[in-house]
């Protein structure tokens, strides 16, 4: 059985700034990282592999430089890494992206049955949380979102039991395989690559698949296959802060002022 971890290279958003004039992301010189939620997806795949001996394949759709992200996955120990890259994939929204990923997963399944697909619950650049469910829908498999614990997995009977972390409650769900799971950070603590793992990853192969491999209708992928697009990115205006009191000379008085202020705005009640 095979586990597929879908990962994405994202700009390190803590370092991204928005150009105040053009209202676009200033991406220049910003380093890329593996989408943090996806690192938990990878980790869980590897843990199940360590326990059950499955094969783990990491896939990612992105520009050729997203190879670095897949190398990180190789360094952590995945068995296979596939980068879905083609100009015609570019400009994709979540629908078009899930079309490409779905087809790639189908193709992977031709040689080794795919039992579980792990995705991060969302990416930190798009924040849509739609690609994972999109894949499940297109594959026609069960989807379990926001999973924070795998409770049981029976590869023979092909059943899985997980805990989903919902607002204010947990839900225990059992489902048949194959299954698409999106994960939250509480699921696990990602491992750190060993040095031999890192060095070997530099020598291992990242497979590049383009649309000649996937043979998707160009109307369903890339910009053409995307019914939605981003029209504007901006930071909401924030009111200027206010200085109250004189913390240096009158710390007690200032603290009192602050508390009064917070109380008057009802910011301290639970």
């Amino acid at each position, binding site marked *: 059985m095979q586990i597929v971890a879908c990962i994405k290279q994202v700009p390190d958003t803590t370092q991204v700034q928005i150009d105040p004039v053009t209202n676009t992301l200033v991406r220049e010189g910003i380093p890329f990282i593996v989408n943090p939620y996806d690192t938990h997806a990878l980790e869980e795949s590897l843990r199940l592999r360590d326990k059950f001996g499955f094969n783990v394949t990491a896939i990612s759709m992105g520009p050729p430089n997203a190879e670095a992200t897949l190398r990180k996955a190789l360094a952590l120990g995945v068995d296979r890494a596939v980068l879905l890259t083609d100009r015609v994939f570019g400009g994709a929204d979540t629908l078009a992206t899930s079309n490409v990923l779905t087809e790639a997963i189908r193709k992977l399944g031709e040689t080794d049955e795919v039992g579980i697909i792990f995705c991060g619950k969302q990416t930190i650049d798009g924040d849509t949380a739609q690609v994972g469910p999109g894949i499940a829908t297109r594959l026609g498999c069960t989807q379990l979102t926001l999973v924070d614990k795998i409770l049981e997995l029976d590869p023979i009977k092909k059943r899985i039991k997980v805990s989903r972390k919902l607002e204010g409650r947990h839900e225990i769900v059992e489902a048949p395989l194959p299954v698409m799971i999106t994960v939250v950070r509480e699921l696990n603590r990602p491992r750190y690559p060993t*040095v031999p793992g890192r060095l070997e990853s530099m*020598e291992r192969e990242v497979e590049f698949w383009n649309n000649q491999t996937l043979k998707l209708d160009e109307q369903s992928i890339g910009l053409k296959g995307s019914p939605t697009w981003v029209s504007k990115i901006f930071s909401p205006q924030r009111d200027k802060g206010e200085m109250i009191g004189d913390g240096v000379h009158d710390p007690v008085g200032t603290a009192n002022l602050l508390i009064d202020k917070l109380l008057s705005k009802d910011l301290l009640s639970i």
Partner: protein
Amino acid sequence: MNPIFTALFIIATVIFATLAWKRFSLIRLGKEENRFDNIPARIVEMLLFAFGQKKVLARPFGINHSILFWAFLVLLLANGEFLLNGIFPAISLRLLITPISGPLVFLFDIVSMLALISILVAFARRIFFKPDYLDSKYVKGRSFEGFLILSFIATLMIAYFGYHAAEIALRGERLAAWMPVSTLAAGLYGGGCGSSGGCNNCGVVPWLIFWWWTHAAVLLAFMVFLPISKHMHILTAIPNCFFGSLEKVNTQPREEFAIGNSYGVEKVTDFSWKDLLDSFSCTECGRCQDSCPANATHKPLNPRQIIHTIKTNLMANAAELQSGSPVKTPLVGAEGEGTNTEEAIWSCTTCGACIEACPVLIEQMPKIIKMRRHLVQMKSQFPEELLNLFENMEQRSNPWGIAPTERTKWSSIMDVKSFDEKETEYLFYIGCAGTFDSRQKHVTVSLATILNAAKISWGVLGKDEKCCGDSARRLGNEFLFDKLAKENVELFKARGVKKIITQCPHCFSTLKNDYRQYGLEIEVIHHAELLQRLLAEGKIKPNREVKELGSIIYHDSCYLGRHNDIYEQPRDVITKVTGEEPKEFGKNRENAFCCGAGGGRMWMEEHEGERINVTRVKEALESSPDTICVACPYCMTMFEDGVKDVNSGNVRIRDIAEVVAEGLRPV
């Protein structure tokens, strides 16, 4: 020839040689390490530390050991003669003319007496006023072994006097006049009969035989016992001082990263031969244990134990290691005499107090880092807090993971130039703490103001500045350190940096000492040195004597003091600016007690024992200072936190730069 003695001597020699050879061949299993460079300097080191007992004498009680050691050297000659004479009774020192043999036996006589006194003192110390640090988990001050060794030496001395006194009593000693102590002892036999005919009417002859054989037996027994006891150090400590590090142990060696390599130490023979020799040289004196801040605050680390474990592990796994089969006793794992725990390994602050304390130049801390290297790089096994640290350092080049674009934020309140090879002389390397830590930013601004006042031409790298990698290296993440070091060295070279000012002793030591391994040999100066120089040269002139900070106590940062010998400069700065010498901690300068943040401990929780910073703050409070002065951002954090923990809110913490800046403020 005396056949019985000769036979015993041969047996003892064979046993001794076998045991010693076993240990020697185990040491040879260690990894390569070049300690044969600069032989003249090594000889000097050996003369100073082994023969001169320099570090032994650093503690008051050390004099007792030194007397014993020097006595041992003199008596080696006496015992050599004894053995030779035992085998070939015709050969004796007394064959030499009196002007030579006389002074020699005089020396032996006196020295034996001194040794006997020292042994009695040592006995008394162990019995009546044994310091706690003589005990470690597996080796006790009042152990059978300890007393046995003392008894051996005492008996040797007593037997020496016993048979020489008997010979004097029997009028058989030509050199009696040269042997005051033995002559005095001879009185105990009632003076003998005066006949030299061997009649034994006086009953002294059996005593002569008894003491001679006692001496012989103890000497041979000692020889056999030596290699299996901690007393082995009398054989290994001298070469260990010869092979000791010629430089301060303030860096770690580089590792070569290539597929197929293994990193750090997993099994004991991954250590170098010198590390293994260290383990056989330990005298179990407990000084490192007594100096270690982790040990003092009841962490599971004792540097002495680290060394003891290496020896025990090596002996326990000897057969497997020699045949190349898997070892029985792991080096790192569940607590045991031959096993270090991971908790112990992670408790080290790399303060270097252990190395400073060790009389026989054992290097404890680097061994801890070698074990960390394996855990981090081969097993990815480390305290969970470090995962973020490593990723932050790797992805954003600072421990906090703050965006590099924010590196210029601190300078929004003043005009700061970019470093430019043509226009600026010094690079002011702010360091991550000086850049991002809200308290330390004040120090950065103070220092920048001083540099301006002194008309120094300086610039910064701004958002291009990267973390120096100190914490990564001390935590054993050499791979990450290697990456940061290469990036930094390349950056400095590309920007044409020739002189660097740092405000953090960790950046300072890393740039200055560690980066030398990467070909960076430029002037790196810590602000303690720079401020002292500027004040001495009159380039900065305080407007007045700073009095508002009250009485100041100065805390030595490990990476400034012990690791780089900068002790007086910061003190001079304080004295110059305040008009008063700073107060001193009980443990100061080379004996200073760490703040608890070095070695990457800054980024880890302190789960066990008392907090190191609180312990140091309490020590400061003993001299009731108004201000604790530091010269390191980590010390700053640890003291700021520490004074809050003990609720001594009215004690201030200041960096020396802030003290100087205070003096420059217009009145």
